[in-house]
């Protein structure tokens, strides 16, 4: 048997030493690798969190809930949360109304592991249609008033609506050439007109002036629409409420102008008819734009601005417009306002409908903020 004392060599020592050296190298490489991986992961999670925060802002603007947000009191806030599709990065935030026109969105984004957080903000402003209606009816071309039709230029506040005091009276009708105004029956001699003056003649009124709205023209209006109406006859337009909520998806729900406590009282749709339409009762509010002719009957009541590319005609118990009407009458056909139709100027109805139907957009500059 061999004694250990007889063993010679340094193999064990060298092997142990080599193991220590290799271990050190591996540990160093591992350490550096881990560091690099952490840096890389931090970059990834930072981007995830930033993307999530940005998504929070984008979703609020692109899915603007005008029924809820436009009716918020100044200083009030609503919260929101969401998750990015494709990964678990998520966001939460707050939308606060700053004043009648401005809102501030704060969005905190988190990475999928919730370890990275980014906080960004966006200043947004309501962008109502820039509409100046200065009479109960503004139009061009031949316009015929008959029956018990009535155009009222005195500024009125709809019953039950909260608005600043009414302003001065406006003309009952503004048109290019007052000789084109034909009055018959009870309207003879402008008897069915009130306002200051009853009739205002403005030779500058033409298709361009009637169909220009700030920096937009008629062709731009469709993009404002919250509801597109195919050419058709709409009978029984009325608010629809289910489960205490206003059913805004219903095509014939155009809001509730007559019952301030209704869930649809703050619903002011921006309605865009893709061609000529007929409306036969009952009521609605908002902004009504018609890319054709508008025919109204059945005592339909509408509160807010009405913009018609073509001509306006009413019959029977007609329609009742509170706010203001622009009838472009671009084909210089004949507006025919007959029956028990009326158009009454109301700065209150115009302002509420324009603000209530407005979408929100980021401020033109300096809207985005890194909140850290």
């Amino acid at each position, binding site marked *: 048997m061999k004694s250990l004392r007889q063993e010679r060599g*340094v193999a064990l020592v*060298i092997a142990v*030493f080599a193991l220590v*050296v290799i271990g*050190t*190298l591996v540990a*160093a*490489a591992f350490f*550096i690798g881990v*560091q*690099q991986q952490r*840096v890389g992961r931090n*970059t990834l999670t*930072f981007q995830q969190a930033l993307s999530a925060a940005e998504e929070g802002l984008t979703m609020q603007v692109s899915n603007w809930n005008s029924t809820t947000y436009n009716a918020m009191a*100044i200083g009030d806030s609503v919260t929101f949360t969401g998750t990015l599709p494709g990964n678990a990065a998520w966001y939460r935030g707050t939308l606060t109304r*700053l*004043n*009648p*026109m*401005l809102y*501030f969105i*704060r969005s905190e984004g988190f990475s999928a592991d919730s370890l990275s957080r980014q*906080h960004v*903000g966006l*200043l947004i*402003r309501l*962008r*109502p249609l*820039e509409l*100046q209606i200065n009479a109960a009816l503004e139009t061009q071309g031949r316009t015929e008033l008959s029956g018990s039709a009535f155009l009222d230029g005195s500024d009125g506040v709809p019953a039950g609506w909260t608005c600043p005091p009414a302003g001065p009276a406006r003309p009952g009708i503004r048109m290019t050439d007052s000789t084109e105004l034909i009055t018959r029956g009870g309207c003879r001699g402008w008897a069915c007109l009130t306002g200051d003056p009853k009739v205002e003649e403005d030779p500058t009124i033409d298709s361009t002036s009637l169909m220009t709205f*700030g*920096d937009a023209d008629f062709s731009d209006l469709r993009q404002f629409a919250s509801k597109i109406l195919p050419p058709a006859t709409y009978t029984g337009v009325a608010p629809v409420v289910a489960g205490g909520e206003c059913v805004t998806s219903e095509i014939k729900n155009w809001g509730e102008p007559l019952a301030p406590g209704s869930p649809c009282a703050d619903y002011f749709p921006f309605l865009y008819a893709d061609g000529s339409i007929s409306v036969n009762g009952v009521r609605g509010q908002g902004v009504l734009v018609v890319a054709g002719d508008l025919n109204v009957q059945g005592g339909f009541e509408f509160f807010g601005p009405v913009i018609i590319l073509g001509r306006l005609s009413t019959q029977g118990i007609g329609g009742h417009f509170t706010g203001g009407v622009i009838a472009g009458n671009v084909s210089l056909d004949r507006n025919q306002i007959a029956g028990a139709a009326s158009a009454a100027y109301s700065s209150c109805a115009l302002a509420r409908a324009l603000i209530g139907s407005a979408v929100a957009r980021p*401020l*033109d*500059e*300096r*809207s*985005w*903020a*890194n*909140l*850290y």
Partner: protein
Amino acid sequence: MLIHIENERGFTLIELLISLVLASLIGTAIIKTLTDSQQLYRAQTERSSMNSNTRMATAILPAEMRELSATDTIGGDITAMSLTDITFKAMRGLFFTCTAPADGGATGTVVLWGTRSFGVRTDIDGARDSVVIFVEGDSSTATDNYWLHAGVTGTPAIGTACPGGAASITVSLSSVRPIGGLGGVTPGGPLRSFEMIRIAAYADALGDRWLGAQLYSAGAWGAIEPILGPLAPSGLQLTYFNAAGAPTTSVDSVARIGLVVIGQTSIPVRGTGGMRRAVDTLITAVALRNNR
């Protein structure tokens, strides 16, 4: 007389020489391996640090530049720019007015909600900061909206001047541009504070190059302070593009800033070309989010 020693043990001279040579060879190899591994470790640490530096540059600078508005007609945020430096208004805080401001023409006072402030700094430093304030004007149109510019006078006062006795920050303004613009500011509107900052590459006394920042305070530029580094020669390259994507030299038409940061290790490290400072290049671009 011959003496025979049985069981004689030990090494012959040849054996000793061979073992010494082998031991020295093995020792040298071990020392070389240790030295190499130490150098490798140091090189990797240096590279790791350099990578972190360049990545940090692409986190810090875009965060500052993203908020700029170069196209503000009252005064764009970029005031000077070149290939190696840029001077701009760095946004620091976001506040909201709680009452209509006092309009004194070129001067005035704004009262801000004390509880609604966001950003890097939630106070306003009278020595360093200036402000821009959103002017609504006619609420029926957005075409007349703009941001007025003003300096800050003195130290803002903390109080309870907001509606309902809520916490407030009262700021005295000077050099309001345009004069009288405060009359169009509506309660609730935003105010953003900013400070002037110059970002540049510079060399220290030892010749090392750094990315540095210089702040404008109390009417004078402060000393440049390092943000990160070291950088390679030409380690900061800034290029400017307009909205059409074309290079521009006009400070008020910048829509995108190209950023190249070339970091280098603080000491020479072994690489494919021998011992020298390793470099790492990181390229990014920042779109200005707040242009009109």
